[in-house]
C-alpha cells in the first residue's frame, strides 16, 4: 500500500493561489520577496521613501500581471524584473536622468584598492549618493548584468553614454570606498 506524501507548498501552488486572487497567498508572496525587493528598489532610488513607493507599486503590478507568469523561470527573478522596470519608470517620472553626456576613458582600478568585505548598508548608501544616471547604469550593468546595448535600449540612450556613466559611477564609488576605508581603519 502506497504512502501519502504531502509536498510542501511550492512556488507553483503559490502562484496558482495568487492567480485565483487569494489574499493570503498574496500576503505570503509579499512576505517572501518584499525584503529582497526593497533592497533592489533602494539601489535605484535616492531615499527609503522612494524605494518603498516603488516597492508597493511594483507589487501591485506583480499581482495584476500574475496571470502572465508561465512558470518558465524562477518567480523571484520575474518579480525582480518587474521591480527594476518599475524603478526605471519611477526615475523617468521623477526627472531627466541624463543631462550630462561626456566621453571619457575608463579609469583603471587596481585589485588591491578593494577591500574584501564591507557593510552592505554602507555600500547601499554609497550607491544612493551617486547621481541618478550613474546609479541607474551601475545597477543595471554591475549588479543586474545587463549589457551596454540592453541598457541603451532600456533607457533610450546610446551605448557610449551608458559606458561613460558607468565609468563615472565606478570612479565615484572608488573614491567613496577609499574614504570609507580610511574611516574604517581609523575606527
Amino acid at each position, binding site marked *: 500500500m502506497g504512502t501519502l506524501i504531502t509536498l510542501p507548498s511550492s512556488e507553483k501552488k503559490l502562484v496558482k493561489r495568487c492567480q485565483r*486572487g487569494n*489574499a493570503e497567498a*498574496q*500576503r505570503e508572496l*509579499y512576505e517572501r520577496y*518584499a*525584503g*529582497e525587493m*526593497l*533592497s533592489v528598489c*533602494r*539601489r535605484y532610488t535616492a531615499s527609503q521613501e522612494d*524605494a*518603498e513607493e516603488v*516597492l*508597493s507599486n511594483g*507589487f*501591485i503590478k506583480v*499581482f*495584476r500581471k500574475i496571470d502572465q507568469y508561465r512558470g518558465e523561470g524562477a518567480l523571484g527573478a520575474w518579480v525582480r524584473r518587474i521591480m527594476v522596470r518599475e524603478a526605471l519608470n519611477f526615475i523617468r517620472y521623477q526627472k531627466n536622468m541624463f543631462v550630462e553626456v561626456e566621453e571619457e576613458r575608463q579609469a583603471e*582600478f*587596481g*585589485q588591491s*584598492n*578593494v577591500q574584501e*568585505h*564591507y557593510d*552592505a548598508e554602507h*555600500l*547601499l548608501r554609497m*550607491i544612493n549618493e551617486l547621481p541618478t544616471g550613474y546609479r541607474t547604469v*551601475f545597477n543595471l*550593468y*554591475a*549588479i543586474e548584468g545587463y549589457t551596454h546595448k540592453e541598457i541603451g535600449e532600456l533607457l533610450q540612450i546610446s551605448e557610449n553614454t551608458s559606458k561613460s556613466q558607468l565609468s563615472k559611477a*565606478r570612479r565615484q*564609488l*572608488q573614491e567613496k*570606498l577609499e574614504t570609507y576605508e580610511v574611516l574604517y581603519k581609523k575606527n
Partner: protein
Amino acid sequence: MKDQHPIDSLFKRELEGHKSSPSPQVWEKVAAASQGSKTRFAPVLLRAATVTLLLSLTAMLYFNRNVEELSTIKPLETGAVSGTEQIEPVVSKSGEAGEAEEANEAGEAEQQIQPKANNARTNQGDAKAQSPRQKPVKQLRKPSPSKASNSLIPLMQVESPRPILVYQDLLTLPMDEQLEKGEPLYDTELIRVRVKNLPETRGYYGEEAPKKAALGEKLWAYANDQFDRALKGERLSLPETDNTELAIPLPDFVSRRLEKSKTK
C-alpha cells in the same frame, strides 16, 4: 562571460542577497489596491456585456433596414441573375479576327461573354442588338428543372442600376487568347457565375488592390474601442460605416415566408 570589474564584483557580491524590511504601510497600500481591482471586476464584466448587447442591436438595426428592401424583391424569374444561381451562358462567336481588340477592358469582356439572364433582366433584347459584330450565338442547353432543383440554392437576388460584370468561378477568362475563333468555351452544360457590383469609386492606383479589414477584425476593433470608452467612462457610440448599402442576406426560410406573404 565578461570579466567583472573589481568594483562591480564587490557591490554585486555584497548587495545581491541583501534584504531590508519595508514599513507596514507598504503592504497596506498593496492590499488596498488588490482589493480595489477585485471590486472593479464586476462593473467591467457588466460593461463588456453592454458592448455585446450594443453590437447585437446594431446588427438588428441593419437587419431590419434590409427587411423592407428584401420584401420588395421580385420572385425569381427564369434568367434572373442571382448570387449563386447557375444560369445558361451565351457565348458569342466573332469571326472577324482583324477587329479583335485587346480584351483587357471590362466592357469588352462583357460583350464577348454575357449571360442571357443579364440580357433578360435589363430588357435589352438579344445579343445581336447590342453589337453589330456579334454573330449568331451558340446557346448551351438549359438544365432540366429537376436536375437544377437538387443543386441550386438561390440565396439572394440583387438589382443594380449600374452595369454588372460577370466573372466565372470555374474557368478563367482567357484574356490573351482570341475569342474570335468561335470555339465553344464550355463543354459542360452548367456553369456557375458570380455577379459583382463594381461601384465607380472602387478604383485604385497601384499593383495590388488595397486590403480591406475582414468583418471579424472590424467588429473586434469596434468592440475594443467601445470597451476602452466604457473603461474611461465615455459614452458608447454606434459603429461608423461608409457602406450605406450593406445588406445582410436573410435565411432561406425567412425569404420563402416573405414570398408567401406577398403572393397572398
